[in-house]
């Protein structure tokens, strides 16, 4: 837009100006902040730099949005993810051009794989310099294509008014995901027509969820009604569509034993009689055994990740599979399904529920009795659950000390799998874990983001020494913001899950999986301004743990755990889910080392036995 006056003074009215002080003409950056306000954004994590300083200047002038200064752009990205994962609404983070932008990529890729709605706004060098290898110039538009749901390079200030609402609409519509908006500095600084600024476009809202095909729903109902041994398999899409209650109701009505992926934990509360917890690589033995027996499997909002289904061709070999997903490209991607339904999981389950025969009508008692028998014969083994100075005990005792609304974040590794196995999650949107990408360093900044969005909640962050060191600088952010994040560090001075794989699958050759030098994490935390409790030195570890969890603000609670304590059961990568190693209840020997042959014969015998019950 042409302006009549070349002066864009920010220092008040010029001498001799009209009595009413003229408003400073807004620029592109002001418009971005205004559009973010209208999207309901009240917290932004980020780091300023040369190419996004106009955005920061506008942020400061507006004064309406709290900015959280991360210590690394990846940390800022995971803080945004933390906010988005607990609220279900898109969250925003800022980074400058060049290294600031490249540092965001891991957090963006993580959001893509776990379908988390975040909007990353990067500064870019002025358009006139784009392509010239200017200082701190990288092609973040090109680099982020494979890891975003969509991305934009804004080429004019006029585009901003369309692009920002579109970014939010795309991030939150259908299957959610990350959107990157790259804004050159000259676009941020270009004047914006006052009329556009005063009447900006409407905020971007998620598109109405697609309705499922009624014929598919009827077929699914018929298949389930005829099933003798049906099961329900919930994925992260159930949480994303807010369908957790509906899924539980459906399971209860039809009497469906229910498994969850890592991403869906909490969708059915732990301890629910129909819940069999997580399936897959580190599932309880009974969970994978029962899946092999089921004859009809209803899969809702899941994508058959290899960590969940193992060797896909041997997954649920007896089952007719019904698959509901909002993303059509997930149907038939890994497994050919017998009944594929594209649509919102919540809508689909709501339509399916009244069509289904009830548990009694369908005669499910024999199957449910078999489920209980299998659960009793192959229980999940959790050694040391009462002692907070053991890997499982740290998780269980912390859970006992906080209320059901606590939010649980994890990093990636053995502690993550143990938390998934052992933490009694009571509801959705309280579980933050890097499922698809498996990003070490996710936990602490995601926990900070969750605490920013839910200041009233206690946020537990279970972590390991390897993961914590990948974003340990965010301890400074936690201290500065005073967030209620309790870091529970199971410190084995090793990369435990790597070590476990080397022990089990590389003939015990441990290469580069242990640290030669121990880190004093309590002193590190205190140096950042975060109080620390070392349970190793505690005379009353349970009491000290509870006290630390009750005190407001951030805290680090550390305990030494043995590097040789593996997570069991474990399905070897690439094997089928019946090929479980370890996790058998053996009196006197908590973790028997089974040979593969022993394990095979045992599980096959059991699966056959299970079928005989219903033959």
């Amino acid at each position, binding site marked *: 837009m042409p302006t009549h006056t070349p002066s864009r003074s920010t220092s008040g009215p010029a001498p001799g100006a009209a009595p009413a002080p003229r408003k400073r003409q807004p620029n592109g950056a002001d418009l971005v902040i205004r559009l973010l306000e209208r999207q309901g954004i009240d917290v932004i994590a980020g780091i300023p730099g040369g190419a996004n300083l106009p955005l920061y200047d506008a942020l400061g002038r507006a004064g309406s949005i709290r900015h959280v200064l991360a210590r690394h752009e990846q940390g800022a990205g995971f803080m945004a993810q933390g906010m988005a994962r607990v609220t279900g609404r898109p969250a925003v983070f800022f980074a400058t051009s060049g290294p600031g932008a490249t540092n965001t990529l891991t957090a963006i890729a993580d959001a893509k794989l776990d379908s988390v709605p975040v909007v990353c706004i990067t500064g870019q060098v002025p358009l006139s310099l784009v392509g010239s290898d200017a200082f701190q110039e990288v092609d973040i*538009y*090109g680099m982020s*294509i*494979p890891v975003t*749901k*969509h991305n934009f*390079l804004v080429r004019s200030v006029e585009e901003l008014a369309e692009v920002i609402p579109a970014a939010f609409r*795309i991030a939150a519509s259908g299957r959610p995901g990350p959107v990157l908006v790259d804004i050159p500095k000259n676009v941020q600084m270009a004047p914006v027509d006052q009329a556009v600024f005063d009447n900006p476009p409407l905020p971007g809202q998620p598109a109405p969820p697609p309705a499922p095909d009624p014929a598919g729903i009827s077929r699914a109902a018929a298949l389930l009604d005829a099933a003798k041994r049906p099961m329900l398999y919930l994925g992260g899409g159930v949480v994303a569509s807010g369908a957790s209650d509906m899924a539980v109701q459906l399971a209860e009505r039809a009497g469906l034993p229910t498994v969850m992926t890592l991403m869906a934990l909490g969708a059915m509360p732990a301890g629910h009689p129909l819940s069999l917890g997580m399936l897959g690589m580190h599932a309880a033995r009974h969970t994978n055994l029962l899946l092999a027996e089921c004859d009809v499997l209803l899969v809702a909002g899941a994508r058959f990740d290899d960590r969940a289904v193992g060797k896909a061709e041997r997954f649920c070999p007896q089952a007719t599979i019904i698959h509901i997903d909002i*993303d*059509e*490209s997930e*149907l*038939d*991607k890994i497994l050919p399904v017998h009944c594929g339904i594209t649509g919102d999981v919540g809508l689909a389950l709501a339509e399916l529920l009244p069509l289904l025969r009830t548990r009694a009508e369908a005669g499910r008692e024999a199957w449910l009795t078999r489920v209980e028998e299998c659960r009793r014969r192959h229980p999940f083994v959790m050694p040391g659950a009462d002692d907070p100075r053991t890997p499982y005990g740290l998780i269980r005792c912390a859970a006992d000390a906080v209320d059901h609304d606590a939010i649980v974040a994890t990093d990636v590794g053995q502690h993550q799998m143990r938390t998934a196995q052992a933490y009694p999650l009571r509801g959705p949107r309280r579980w933050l874990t890097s499922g698809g990408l498996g990003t070490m360093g996710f936990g602490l900044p995601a926990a900070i983001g969750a605490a920013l969005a839910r200041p009233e909640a206690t946020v537990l962050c279970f972590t390991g020494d390897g993961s914590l060191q990948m974003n340990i600088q965010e301890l400074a952010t936690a201290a500065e913001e005073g967030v209620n994040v309790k870091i529970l560090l199971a410190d084995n001075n090793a990369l435990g899950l790597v070590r476990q794989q080397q022990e089990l699958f590389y003939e015990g050759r441990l290469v580069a999986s242990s640290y030669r030098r121990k880190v004093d994490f309590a002193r590190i935390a205190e140096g950042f301004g975060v109080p620390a409790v070392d349970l190793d030195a505690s005379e009353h570890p349970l009491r000290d743990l509870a006290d630390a969890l009750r005190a407001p603000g951030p805290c680090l609670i550390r305990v030494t755990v043995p590097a040789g304590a593996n997570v069991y059961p474990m399905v070897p990568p690439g094997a089928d889910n019946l090929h479980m190693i370890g996790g058998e209840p053996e009196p006197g020997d908590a973790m028997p080392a089974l040979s593969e042959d022993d394990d095979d014969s045992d599980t096959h015998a059991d699966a056959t036995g299970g079928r005989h019950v219903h033959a």
Partner: protein
Amino acid sequence: MSMPDTATPDRQHLSPRPACPTAVAPDARPLVALRLTVNNHPGVMSHVCGLFARRAFNVEAILCTPVNGGQVSRIWLLVAEDERLEQMVRQVRKLHDVLDVRRRPAGGEGFARLAECMAAWERETAGQ
């Protein structure tokens, strides 16, 4: 698209067409033409080609031209018919700048005519 007939005198340049796509892929699978209607802005080709590359799906030939005054473009992709094609089409449909995807069996003729056109350009370039 109209093509000026500049190739009448010496068609022998065209007769062996080693690089010219035909109706089968190099491994003898039949070819399919995908017709994409896309928003015309810089970056769309990156989105489309990058998707095929990172999902390890070969593209035999690409043609892209603006239509309707340049607001949208048409991209024609020549790909091998295989069991993953439906999955690729679904992935392409998810791209926000892709407005429409259709497919048809690829007879060799269309691309053969395009090859003729390109052969003419080759000759002109060779004369420079």
